[in-house]
């Protein structure tokens, strides 16, 4: 993982894409599929897109499993694109990222995201949302699709 000097730089007032839906297991695939559409338009190569989709899937799965114990709430994805660099922010309004001794998972989600993404930040947004912020270097455009 490479340190990005200023990850905030990519964040715009209005992201290029924002999706909000209930934090249910079935909706992780919806977000993943939407990211696939994003990658197609941005002409992202298959390997990079696969990494991006896996990272987003892990972040969204964390929301579904950990954010709302015993209940349900919103899960969001924001995407901002700046000169072949993609910032993805997965958000929730749950209890925040806290240690969980009774976690049903292996605890590999965030380390995996950190490995796949160019940078990873965990924090709280302006609306007190829990945020997982990931940046990806999209490389040079591939040979399919087109983004204006």
């Amino acid at each position: 993982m490479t340190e990005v000097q200023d990850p905030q730089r990519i964040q715009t007032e209005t992201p290029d894409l924002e999706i909000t839906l209930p934090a249910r297991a079935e909706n992780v695939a919806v977000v993943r599929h939407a990211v696939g559409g994003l990658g197609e338009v941005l002409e992202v190569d298959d390997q990079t897109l696969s990494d991006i989709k896996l990272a987003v899937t892990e972040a969204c799965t964390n929301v579904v499993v950990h954010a709302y114990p015993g209940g349900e709430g919103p899960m969001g994805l924001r995407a901002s694109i700046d000169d072949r660099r993609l910032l993805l922010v997965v958000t929730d309004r749950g209890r925040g990222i806290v240690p969980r001794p009774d976690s049903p998972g292996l605890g590999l989600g965030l380390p995996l995201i950190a490995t796949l993404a160019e940078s990873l930040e965990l924090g709280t947004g302006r609306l007190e949302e829990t945020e997982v912020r990931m940046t990806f270097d999209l490389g040079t455009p591939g040979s399919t699709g087109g983004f204006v």
Partner: protein
Amino acid sequence: MSDAATTNEAVVHVRSGPLVGAVLGRVVGMLAARAQCPIDRLDDAILLTDAVAAHAPVHARNSHVHVVVAADDERLELRVGQLRPDGARRLLADGDLPGVGNVFDRVADDVQTGTGADGETGELVLRLNFRS
């Protein structure tokens, strides 16, 4: 779309341009499929989505297209919001195809134009029933 227990709802806010069709089509397709939408109606849903993606950016109040997609066991609903005050009517009119008629009217079971919850922006509501 009142039963929260069975309704799945996605709010999509996407910058006008090629992202609209690519993302919106996938979200609508996934939600409709999850709601056990019959295959012929899934085609209709994608047709409506393509028409929205093609014409909504022109009538959006700002640089983004805003769509709420809701699906349950009975129907799919697209609420195309944050349009200019006259945008819903104009978007509906853009669905006219020579010799075919209006694609929104012909494909959707219910079409309504109105204003959004803020009372200022236009909203086009399209409903597609899964069963006749």
